[in-house]
């Protein structure tokens, strides 16, 4: 169940960040990487229960290739690659704060679903994090709102000012909230 949810959220994240697809080559490449990484991550979760033999000596070549494939599949950080590619894909678009905020929520849900799927833990294992996640959603909305505020004036300084304000707000919340929870 959680595996299916992880795959679905990964696919939704890729689609959400890709549509509409910018015409640049970098966007196409990022989309390709994102699709590959999400697919490989899904494959890793699907094959997580396949055991590896203790001794790999004197095995036939196809079996050795299969073992090598499984090792690579389990070794590489596919989800991190997927997250980076999706964020890169989102950057290719012009600013769309609420769209980005939804993408952030999808990505966090994707990472949580992947963790539940690979650890075999039930969703109720995330219950202690519920309040922090709710606070994170508020900060996500605040970030989006900060992105929608009009610039005080033309030029890079005003954009930088908005960014600093948003980061300061988030950092302050991040420092204060854990002690309150």
């Amino acid at each position, binding site marked *: 169940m959680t595996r299916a949810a992880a795959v679905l959220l990964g696919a939704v994240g890729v689609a959400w960040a890709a549509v509409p697809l910018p015409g640049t080559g970098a966007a196409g490449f990022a989309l390709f990487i994102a699709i590959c990484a999400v697919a490989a991550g899904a494959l890793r979760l699907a094959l997580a229960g396949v055991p590896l033999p203790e001794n790999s000596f004197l095995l036939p070549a196809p079996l050795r290739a299969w073992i090598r494939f499984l090792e690579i599949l389990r070794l590489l950080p596919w989800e*991190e690659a997927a997250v980076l590619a999706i964020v890169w894909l989102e950057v290719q678009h012009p600013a769309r704060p609420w769209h980005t905020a939804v993408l*952030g929520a999808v990505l966090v849900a994707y*990472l949580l679903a992947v963790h539940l799927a690979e650890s075999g833990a039930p969703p109720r294992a995330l219950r202690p*994090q519920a309040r922090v996640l709710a606070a994170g959603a508020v*900060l*996500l909305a605040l970030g989006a709102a900060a992105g929608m505020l009009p610039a005080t004036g033309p030029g890079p300084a005003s954009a930088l000012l908005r*960014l600093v*304000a948003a980061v300061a707000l988030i950092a302050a919340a991040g420092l204060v909230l854990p002690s309150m*929870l």
Partner: protein
Amino acid sequence: MSSPSIPNDRAFPGPGSELEVRWRTSRHARRLLTLALAGVFVATLARRPEFAGLAAPALLLLAAGQGQRRLARLRVKVRASAGRAFEGEVVAVDVAADVGSRADDFAVRWTLHPGREIDPVGATDADGRTTRFTVTPQHWGRRELGTVDVMLRDRWRLTEGHATVSLPRVDCYPAPAQQRELVVLRRLPNRLGEHPARTAGEGIEFAGVREYVPGDRQRSINWPASTRRGRLQVNTFAAERSQDVVLIADATSDVGEPGSSALDLALRGVAAAARAYTDARDRVGVVTYQWGTASWLPPGLGRRQVYRIIDSMLASDAGWARGASVYRLPRAALPPGALVVVFSPLLNQRLVETLRELRERGFAMLVVDVLNAEPPNRPRVADRMARRIWRMEQDAIRFSLRELGISVVHWDGVQSLDLPLAGHTRRPLAAPGTRR
């Protein structure tokens, strides 16, 4: 195969073992960190505040988990349902982690790594502070059950503590073959037992009718025979005796398919014979032969003797046996007049010579041939010739033993031992020099 039976007491006895916990960042934390850094990086470079918001939930989760106190040491208790088991029998292993008063702060996950020749019966992963794994040893010997990895996860699931605990060792006994019928000596020692002897006695097996003499018990009068003959006749019964049985397991050669090799069959056959003869109140001993030396256990009675016999054979398996020469075994190991049953592939010439010598010393002997392998069949003429010569040599060995009066029967390890022994269980086995 029997199901494990473990008393369901709440606490494990004993202090358990204290393990050092190695903590490291979880993959989940690394993924959250990647998302957070990517968001902050893009927000800074592209000057787009919404990406700072994208990084916020991940940053918040990471920050929230920083205040967690980690457990430096963990006490783990392990208990196996049995210290010894037969091949294919299920052994349950209970493990419990003692995290003290901080039970709610950590989730515990167990992963079983079975040892060699140990197969897990159920799942190899489990959650919870206590859990039970079931395993089954596949092959006889002294087996390590394996190890269990313990993983502690904090409530934010950002760090993982790892520790490994070793599971206890189990003595895996060879699964005994099936044997119900017994080979019995023609002349039994004068000791009370369950085998009907040829002499009259106080047993329950009818032997004949004779004329009444004063002193006979009235209840033994055979009234129909007395009426026919006109004089009082009494029933006579066979005396019941026990015998000494010495089982010789040949551990010099281990040829054949793993799991049904000559050594496997020898041990299973000895276990079956030991069980069958001790059930019949016979005294059973064992001699484990290894390259001219022998470890031995004197004949004894009872079911415990079966376990002693198997333990003795497993101890011999652990290395070179520090035993006496088989030519100089003491009287206690080979009592005079004992029935000697040998389980051997007859590949060792010294053992064959030993068997001949034992026969000449007057022992009634029976050899169960457990050789079920041959040299590989190769197309070269020289190989075919060598294979043929080898077969002829084997036939010659068996023929020479039969010529000495030693019965040789072949057992394939699949069928019951009663089948190859059928020709000898129907009538008593004679020792050399006794008339049939």
